[in-house]
């Protein structure tokens, strides 16, 4: 039996910890609020100048630009977070005015120097600012930070490289997918997608990468950016890659690209004997492709022993138009149809109530 004094003592201790935590949270919030208000107060006199710069034509930006560039260190420090935020909110002459302000003030060069700071938050913040500025000379340094020991810095560097949009970053971004200091694939995919057409050659070279994840990410980016000229390479990956995840990405990309070259490898990939995940995605991709030649193979899949493959094939048939619907009706009306008839009827019922079920099955890597 526990003595009442012990219970009371424990309760008092718990209450003390709770109160201390509340005070700490309130203190942190209060300090943050005070800091923000102080920053706003210091920046308030120059805020109209900033708005003038953002709203001016290029020819009229000179005066507010010079006045802002001359502000004292304390005011700059208070205004700079707003400037960095604004870089992501405005475009056109407003954005170019901000970029010129950073350059005139020497803040761009400072940010480049800060990439080598000993403090991780400074390196991350500098990467963020340089990314928003689209500062191409910083690309080699940002690539180096992809292997930083701090995960937040690695993320900031990858995002910044995407924003800068320099094709030189492609091999580094793909390489950053492996090892103990890897960057999450979603971040690398987004960064590569932002790089633009000049990076396509490098991304396509990623199909030969020794790391399966790098190949999968390359294929996903090629599919997402509509790189139709790379259909042959992606079709080859679907046929020959030893890793199922890479083949699944290839099947989905071929469906997205919608090129006729994708038809044959996708029809091969839905056949029994391939991994179920791949067959499901390939069946959905055949629906996205919209080729009438896929009607027969998809119709045969209605009776597949795997219910997911059969259901995806039924929905894919709906996307093939009248020919697909005819195939579904024939299967639905077959008295000895069994599960195939059931899948066909389910798909037709979904279509009749106007539900737009997406046939693409997301199989995450």
């Amino acid at each position: 039996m526990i003595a009442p004094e012990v219970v009371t003592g424990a309760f008092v201790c718990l209450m003390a910890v709770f109160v201390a935590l509340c005070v700490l949270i309130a203190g942190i919030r209060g300090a943050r609020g005070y800091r923000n208000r102080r920053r706003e107060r210091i920046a308030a006199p120059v805020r109209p100048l900033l708005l003038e710069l953002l709203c001016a034509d290029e020819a009229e930006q000179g005066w507010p630009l010079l006045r802002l560039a001359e502000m004292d260190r304390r005011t700059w420090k208070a205004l700079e977070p707003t400037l960095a935020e604004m870089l992501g909110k405005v475009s056109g002459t407003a954005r170019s005015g901000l970029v010129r302000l950073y350059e005139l003030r020497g803040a761009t060069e400072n940010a480049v120097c800060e990439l080598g700071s000993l403090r991780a938050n400074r390196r991350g913040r500098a990467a963020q600012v340089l990314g928003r500025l689209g500062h191409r000379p910083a690309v080699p340094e940002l690539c180096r930070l992809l292997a930083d020991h701090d995960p937040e810095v690695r993320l900031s560097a990858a995002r910044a490289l995407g924003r800068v949009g320099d094709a030189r970053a492609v091999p580094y971004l793909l390489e950053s997918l492996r090892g103990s200091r890897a960057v999450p694939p979603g971040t690398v995919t987004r960064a590569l997608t932002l790089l633009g057409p000049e990076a396509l050659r490098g991304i396509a070279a990623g199909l030969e990468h020794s790391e399966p994840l790098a190949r999968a990410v390359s294929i996903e980016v090629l599919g997402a950016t509509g790189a139709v000229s790379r259909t042959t390479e992606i079709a080859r990956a679907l046929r020959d890659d030893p890793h199922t995840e890479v083949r699944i990405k290839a099947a989905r990309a071929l469906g997205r690209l919608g090129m006729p070259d994708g038809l044959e490898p996708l029809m091969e990939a839905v056949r029994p004997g391939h991994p179920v995940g791949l067959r499901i995605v390939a069946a959905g991709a055949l629906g996205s492709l919209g080729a009438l030649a896929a009607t027969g193979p998809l119709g045969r899949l209605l009776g597949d022993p795997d219910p997911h493959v059969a259901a995806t094939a039924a929905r894919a048939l709906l996307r093939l138009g009248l020919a697909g619907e005819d195939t579904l009706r024939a299967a639905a009306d077959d008295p000895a149809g069994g599960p195939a008839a059931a899948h066909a009827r389910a798909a037709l019922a979904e279509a009749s109530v106007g539900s737009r079920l997406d046939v693409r099955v997301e199989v995450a890597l």
Partner: protein
Amino acid sequence: MARVLIADDDADIRDLVAFKLLQSGHEVTAVEDGMAALRALREQPPDLALLDIRMPGMSGLDVCRELRAAPETATLPVIMITARSQEGDVEVGFAAGADDYIIKPFSPRELSSRVNAVLNRVER
């Protein structure tokens, strides 16, 4: 000169849009959420409303639907503001009755031109 209402929870955007429209000679009322926008709209109906789609509490879409449901504001021109990452909102915005949309990041000059274009269209 027209009366324009801006509803955006982002103070930077609110100030920037207000500054640009004041420069263009419009009269501007700026509020930070959907409820305040509805109140302002009922108190003194503007000639045009600029609504951020994503706002805490009542969204710009909800405000737009309310405007279209009330006879006195059913034809009020509405421009929606949305972020590039939320472009799917554009379709929903039009369905809710918006006349135009602006995607962030935007150029203040382009925003001013769009506001004037919508106002001119309504005048005609």
